[in-house]
């Protein structure tokens, strides 16, 4: 059943966000710490577990893979609702603060990639 896949995915996301929220409270921060990352780890572990003990079934799997495939259209929708005007209206301070941060971060990628483990 396709809903099993969707339900499993939803379960992982909700549980992950709850744990991320609790992690935030633990550190006294008004933000979710890694909720989505925790949800992803849960899904990886659960799907791994299901693969070993019993097969998830093709149709059930489609309940997850559909959402993974609709990812790019969702990102396009996300781009279409960005506050681009707000970014431009921020003027030079915002442009330089954000721009230099991005540039320096890009430069760090090759350096950090050299780390062995």
């Amino acid at each position: 059943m396709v809903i099993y896949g969707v339900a499993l995915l939803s379960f992982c996301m909700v549980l992950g966000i709850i744990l991320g929220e609790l992690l935030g409270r633990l550190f006294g921060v008004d933000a979710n710490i890694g909720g989505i990352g925790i949800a992803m780890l849960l899904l990886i572990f659960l799907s791994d577990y299901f693969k070993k003990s019993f097969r998830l079934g093709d149709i059930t799997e489609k309940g997850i893979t559909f959402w993974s495939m609709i990812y790019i259209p969702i990102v396009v929708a996300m781009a279409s609702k960005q506050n681009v005007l707000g970014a431009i209206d921020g003027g030079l301070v915002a442009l330089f603060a954000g721009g230099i941060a991005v540039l320096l971060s890009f430069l760090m990628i090759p350096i950090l990639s050299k780390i062995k483990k």
Partner: protein
Amino acid sequence: MMDLLEVINSVLSKNGLITSFIFVGCIVWVSYFISDKLTDGKFHGSALAILLGLLFAYLGGTYTGGEQGVADISFLSGVGLLGGAMLRDFAIVATAYGVRFEDLKSSGLAGVLSLFIGVILSFFAGAAVAVIFGYSDATSITTIGAGAVTFVVGPVTGSALGASSDVIALSIAAGLVKSILVMVGTPFLAKHVGLNNPKSAMIFGGLMGTNSGVAAGLAAVDPKLVPYGAMTATFYTGLGCLLAPSFLYLIIHIIY
């Protein structure tokens, strides 16, 4: 005639999410068509679709004066739901399906390190710009630096420290600039910085941290890399909210 337009507008608005599928479907189709015919596939269709989306967001913002891009136009309000944090995060979690845990583990250290370096580097870049532009109180400098981390960390830090509302607005704008620059810049810069494998994607996610920027940037380069970048990026805003109003503010406070 007016009646017909009214009927169409009201049907499209009432079925907003469905309308947004048509809207996005058209953007993606046009983008892949242009990518194929005009650039011979050299410029990735999804990268073009994201740029086109941003262009529409700009036009929508100019037309309505709102903050939600095209989603402020009533019959396109469904784009706000489709492109909102809930469905975006749902799809991001789904991309993790099939990821091998070994790949994550083998780049774990680099990923964690990139998170700390990313937050601290962006913060001081933003703080330095604030100083250059004449800000001299620790609260404003910290808030603008935090905005360069992400547009969530800026206002969270600003309100924790009691920054003025125009400085908080500025910090949000800095975060928006960052997020949009990552979306636009990643497809152009990916090749030059070796962003083509799970490990560098994890580092990329940790360094940039902006969820929307990383999500769109990797989608435009190689969708297979999305889960790795998203995995580290999801910890970034939390780490920023943790460090900026405390440890990083303290450093700025000592200097000023």
